[in-house]
């Protein structure tokens, strides 16, 4: 036991002495959360709208006004011909355009259908659908106004309307950052973990102490614990810093238990570190080890963890694959605790999976070390 304590002390000493690395390990996640938190969003605002209005009249002006004051749109250009729109779409100046048929007001007055064409840049399909819906909503609003005034002057409207009463549960502000930031935490913690793995690997190689430790009286499990524990502590500090940031900078709610969240974060870091140790124990080629560690952790964590792209949208093969990605479970847990305020009762399954992963990876590492001894 004292051998283990000695090892822990040595590792801790090394880490504390290397102040620059320490600062990087803690400051970096903080910087990344800010950067990505403001960058990874899907909120739609300031939609660049172009207008084709060859013969402006009171109705077209009124509707254009509605668009301008809707808050979501920003009129960037008014042209006379539809043909003028193409370059605007091509260089991205306009995301959407409304085209009025000349004589718009006249048609309205006559009770003839007054035509509007909404052209939306649908390169990104979802944005396309949403923009269309928004534009449609503005026009519907105007239509209701027209119908209402017609009603008040004695004309009964013959159109039925079903209005959606939308409630957004767990994310009332609808800020997409509330959704992404918990996932971002997982991503950033993964980066921190793999950085720490890389650092300990390089240190091992430089000082050549791995072999020395293996022939010492330390048992393989003790070696692993000795290597993981200090980094777990650092990761934990990072996690705290990230949660604080999420709350202060992005005002992501924390409806559940902070303690539970931090516990889960620690568990997640443990899993990531264990993966790193296993990789370093198994691969002899440093170059391969690095590549495996990076490819195996960073990319899957961005893609398959549900951090940005919902797991439900993926084809079944990838959905199955995502079950193996630790980040996926932590993202679900973090979102649950922060946004929904659920407790262990709801996330016990995910927690158990993470715990099992950690146990399996550590056991595999121990096994690998034993093999190296023989």
């Amino acid at each position: 036991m004292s051998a283990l304590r000695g090892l822990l002390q040595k590792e801790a000493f090394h880490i504390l002495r290397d102040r620059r690395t320490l600062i990087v390990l803690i400051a970096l996640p903080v910087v990344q959360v800010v950067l990505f938190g403001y960058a990874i969003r899907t909120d739609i605002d300031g939609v660049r709208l172009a207008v084709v209005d060859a013969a402006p009249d009171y109705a077209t002006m009124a509707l254009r006004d509605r668009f301008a004051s809707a808050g979501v749109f920003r009129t960037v250009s008014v042209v006379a011909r539809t043909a003028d729109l193409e370059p605007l779409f091509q260089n991205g100046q306009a995301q959407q355009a409304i085209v009025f048929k000349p004589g718009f007001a006249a048609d309205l007055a006559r009770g003839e259908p007054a035509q509007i064409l909404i052209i939306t840049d649908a390169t990104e399909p979802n944005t396309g659908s949403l923009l269309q819906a928004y534009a449609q909503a503005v026009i519907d609003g105007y239509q209701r106004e027209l119908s209402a005034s017609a009603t008040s002057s004695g004309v009964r409207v013959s159109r039925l309307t079903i209005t959606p009463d939308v409630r957004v549960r767990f994310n009332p502000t609808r800020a997409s950052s509330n959704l992404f930031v918990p996932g971002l935490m997982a991503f950033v913690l993964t980066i921190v973990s793999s950085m720490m793995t890389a650092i300990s690997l390089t240190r091992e190689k430089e000082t050549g102490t791995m072999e020395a430790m293996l022939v010492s009286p330390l048992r393989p499990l003790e070696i692993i614990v000795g290597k993981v524990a200090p980094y777990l502590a650092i990761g934990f500090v990072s996690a705290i810093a990230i949660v604080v940031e999420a709350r202060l900078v992005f005002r992501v709610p924390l409806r559940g238990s902070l303690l539970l969240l931090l516990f889960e974060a620690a568990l997640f870091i443990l899993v990531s570190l264990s993966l790193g140790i296993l990789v370093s124990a198994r691969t002899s080629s440093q170059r391969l080890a690095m590549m495996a560690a990076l490819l195996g952790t960073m990319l899957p964590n961005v893609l398959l963890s549900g951090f940005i792209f919902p797991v439900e949208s993926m084809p079944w093969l990838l959905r199955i694959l995502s079950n193996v990605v630790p980040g996926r479970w932590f993202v679900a847990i973090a979102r649950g605790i922060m946004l929904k305020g659920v407790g262990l009762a709801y996330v016990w399954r995910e927690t158990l999976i993470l715990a099992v992963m950690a146990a399996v990876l550590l056991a595999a590492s121990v096994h690998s070390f034993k093999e190296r001894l023989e």
Partner: protein
Amino acid sequence: MRRILFLAQAEVLHIVRDRILVAQILVVPIVQLLILSNAATFQIRNTSIHVVDLDRTSTSRGLVSHLAASGHFQIVGTAPSLDAANEGLLAGTVTMVVVIPHDFEVSLVRTGVAPVELSVNGEKGSAAGIVQAYAARVLVDYAAELTARLRPGVLAAKAAVPIPVRGVPRIDVRVRGRYNPTLNYQHYMVPGILVALVTMIGTLLSAQNIAREKELGTLEQLNVTPIRRGEFITAKLLPFWALGLLELSLGLIVGKLVFDIPMVGSVLLLYGAAVVYLAVALGIGLWISTLVETQQQAMFVTFFIVIIYLLMSGLFTPIDSMAPWVQAVSQINPVRHFVTISRAILMKGAGPAAIVEPLSILAISAVVILTLAVRQYRKRLA
């Protein structure tokens, strides 16, 4: 000049004989392309929803069947209990709960308007937004259908008020989507992912390559020869330039064969832009190699920087959604510009005029980064 040829010749030999490298160029990117394109999607398929029908009239049932038939939703629960529905939201098993109030039909008949509550699960993010938009669309369509079905006279009879049909102002809305006619998410992602692949080759491999020479000591040997800095760098980067373009070709072929991506604009123009972009990517790789000592470090630093570039490039999430200051910062992100160019050319059929702005920024970036990197590379240490 000759020296460049001799060194470049040796470079080509190195590349061809390095098995791991060949795998990195041919296999890894294709795998990444396939996985990325399939994973990176916000598409909604068969979203689970729970419908609480408190009205139980023919009208409300009609709405439910419309929702079911829309193809977007999968109704997993119809228990007329708000609690059960809420449980679903809490547990995360449903994305939306539709609640039809008990006076749905009556409201419609009497006042012509009726509300339907849509509770979307905010933790599902953009999926929630889309699902809500789809549902809203179904509501509108159903309302129009109801209007058409019920003859004005019938309505009038029910309401006991005369309804003149003509003279009501009516806006006829047509919608048209430009580009991506099939609304295929992969058509949107693949052009962007191609950029990621090319970036990997350009930056990672060049950084790794020079770092390896440092590690082995062969760089030192070259520094003792009369070869000039510029010659050395050109000879080193040229092969990777070619490889980057090769990678682009490979990606385009796979993209076409597997995903049938659109190629509306001039592919030649895309290659032209790629040539400029690669200069930037290579410059960054070169610059990284002057900072590190080993291949391992090169790999790590490159991955790190490239991931940041990728996440902030508009590849995964739209630039328009980013906070304004981040958008401004992303102007110096070359990946952003090439992603824009790639999508513009392949999906919108953009010509040179439409991409002149991002392309100019790339050109300037290339000059700047290459100058910086060359300056940084010194044959003699101070």
